[in-house]
């Protein structure tokens, strides 16, 4: 009864992926530019006369066919980052700095009208509460057909057929395609949300806690589906979650955010097995794991800072076990290491790239430091 195992990942090259597009790239797109490049993004929320600095200088990139996980606690700015990419911020939110370049086109500069060319057609989103995101009085099939009809300018019949095909692809049988959202189970609704995100054949799908409200087995099914779609369609994924364990088996790279900034970013195996930033280490240690001693769970004391008046220096310093005097005064710069990890922590002030020159970094992780 189990489904066929999926073979090893991604045989597609970036050129393949762009070659498979059904609809043309945006007119201004540079075919050789990276898929997505976010630089020093600052998204703040107005609160009275002050600004809450929800996202405060976040940079990252996403390559064709790649899956990036963004992890962090509630209110660390991960959802705000995602909403900034598609500019669906609440009324009091504003991108106050930085750039979001898709195929080399800066989306931050785009007007709302111009953004419509990109939102859903190039970057789409799967939200957490499928019941809230779907319209309860429209058949699932028709909800998915709508963007195909209007955004891609397809005739109604073709749009409906594509909607049914998409639903079939995500595991909703044809005979269920004309159901209303309330007639579907939670897992099925989330599948419908995914089908809708795929409606306009986007280059990037952002999943904001796509599995959080689901049962463990359904969660595994949905993650499996996302991985399958990523391989079959050459999608690039951004998965946002507070639960690092969701990312372990689905992402290539993980970005750990804390209080609106990047704490650490790197290949998934490095983040999980050799975390450098004390916060990453706590996060990795805090999820229950059936394969380890159950008493070894880490606890992160205290609470994230108020982003109206964030502490000077490192924002994690008040909760950090390794805090030094410098941490409360100087903002730690982001330092890149030769194993592809980027860390913002005073414990790792200098990169090994210039000095060691590309060798691996055994012995320089936080785990090793604390064992001494």
């Amino acid at each position, binding site marked *: 009864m*189990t489904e066929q*195992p*999926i073979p090893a990942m991604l045989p597609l090259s970036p050129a393949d992926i762009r070659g498979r597009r059904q609809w043309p790239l945006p007119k201004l797109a540079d075919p050789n530019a990276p898929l997505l490049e976010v630089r020093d993004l600052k998204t703040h929320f107005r609160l009275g006369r002050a600004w809450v600095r929800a996202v405060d200088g976040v940079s990252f990139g996403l390559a064709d066919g790649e899956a990036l996980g963004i992890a962090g606690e509630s209110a660390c700015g991960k959802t705000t980052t995602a909403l900034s990419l598609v500019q669906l911020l609440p009324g009091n939110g504003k991108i106050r700095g930085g750039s979001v370049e898709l195929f080399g086109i800066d989306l931050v500069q785009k007007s709302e009208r111009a953004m419509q060319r990109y939102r859903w057609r190039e970057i789409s989103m799967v939200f957490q509460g499928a019941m809230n995101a779907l319209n309860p009085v429209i058949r699932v099939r028709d909800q998915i057909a709508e963007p195909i009809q209007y955004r891609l300018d397809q005739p109604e019949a073709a749009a409906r057929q594509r909607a049914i095909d998409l639903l079939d692809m995500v595991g909703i049988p044809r005979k269920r395609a004309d159901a209303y959202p309330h007639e579907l189970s939670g*897992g*099925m609704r989330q599948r419908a949300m995914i089908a809708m995100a795929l409606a306009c054949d986007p280059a990037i799908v952002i999943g904001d806690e796509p599995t959080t409200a689901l049962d463990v087995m359904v969660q595994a099914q949905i993650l499996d589906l996302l991985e399958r779609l990523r391989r079959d369609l050459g999608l690039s994924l951004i998965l946002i979650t507070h639960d690092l364990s969701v990312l372990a*088996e689905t992402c290539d790279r993980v970005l750990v955010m804390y209080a609106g900034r990047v704490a650490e970013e790197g290949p998934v195996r490095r983040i999980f097995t050799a975390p450098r930033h004390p916060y990453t280490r706590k996060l990795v240690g805090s999820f229950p794991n*059936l*394969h380890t001693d159950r008493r070894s769970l880490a606890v992160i004391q205290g609470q994230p800072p108020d982003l109206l008046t964030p502490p000077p220096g490192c924002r994690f310093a008040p909760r950090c076990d390794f805090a030094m005097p410098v941490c409360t005064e100087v903002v730690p710069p982001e330092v890149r290491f030769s194993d592809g990890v980027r860390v913002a922590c005073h414990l790792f002030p200098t990169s090994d790239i210039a000095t060691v020159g590309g060798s691996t970094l055994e012995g320089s992780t936080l785990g090793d430091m604390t064992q001494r």
Partner: protein
Amino acid sequence: MSELLRVSGLQVHFPIRRALGDVVRGRAASAVRAVDGIDLSIQEGEVLALVGESGSGKTTTGRVIVKLTRQTAGRVTFDGQDVTDLWGTRRLRAYRRRVQLIFQDPYETLDPKQTIHDFVAEPLEVNHIGRSAAEREVMIASALEAAGLRPAATYASRHPHELSGGQRQRVVIAGALAVGPELVVADEPVSMLDVSIRTELLRLMLDLRKERHLTYLFITHDLSIAWVIADRIAVMYLGKIMEIGPANRVISVPRHPYTAALVSVAPSPEPPAPGERAKRTILVGETPDASAIPAGCRFNTRCPLVFDRCRVEEPPLIDLGDGQSAACWLAEQATSTGGIADMLPNARRPLGLASPAAQRLASQAAL
């Protein structure tokens, strides 16, 4: 240790109203069989986790135990007394002081207009606990501090919106503790919280067990949370217990394919090597409707190991020794180190029980 709670032959069926057309056509009345015959026993001071997906009947079982839902059949015995037919607010007052419930969502449990102090005070006043107002104040403060809201005075006058999700759940715990219960039924108490906060609350609950001599029935859909907190784990599916036993045995040597599948999809210790995939048994489809439970073994429609007998005859809970039982025809054959997971195609193998020292470590209850 003596037995604190026993549930035997518990059934909860919710009748489905027939439409007029169904009555005219002579269709039989049907029912949602939410809980369909389970036996449980909880020892004093123990943490028993009831694990299952949506629709498994775990919450309904908890609600019967706290007397919020009437059973269709079966008996509930608490501390030697039969409480099956104890109903009515007044008659239940003494029972409710001894058995408390913690709900999943602290945002909905707390009244937004009520202060923290008043929330904790309410059960004391309703139950006429404490001889004077001053004595009650002491009890409120001690409950808040026990739940980790220290000093109590700084929290007492606040409203729920001034607190974080984790703090709200602590308030809910304080409210449950205030009346001095013996058994706490916790229904998904950490599911709404960030993973990083869950650990703290689980630890708090375990500390409170020691300090206040509590016994927990811990209801969760997440096997890995059960693994952190429970002494024993019972895995439910469609209203019945599929497997029950000491936590380390259920996790390391599962003898029911459903348990093994749940273990295999639990978070892994580290990401798979590049180009590899983790071995998981992802069950296909969804839990069937509890108004149309499959004949034979109720898991047979999704079981990777199903054979002819499973479709006609429902397996009983088979005692496998060491306190472990499983309702599967293959359970007795699955004696290898990884339990029945070794028989599953493509499954991530549980580690099996390693050295005696490791076994001892795993069986020690405290975090």
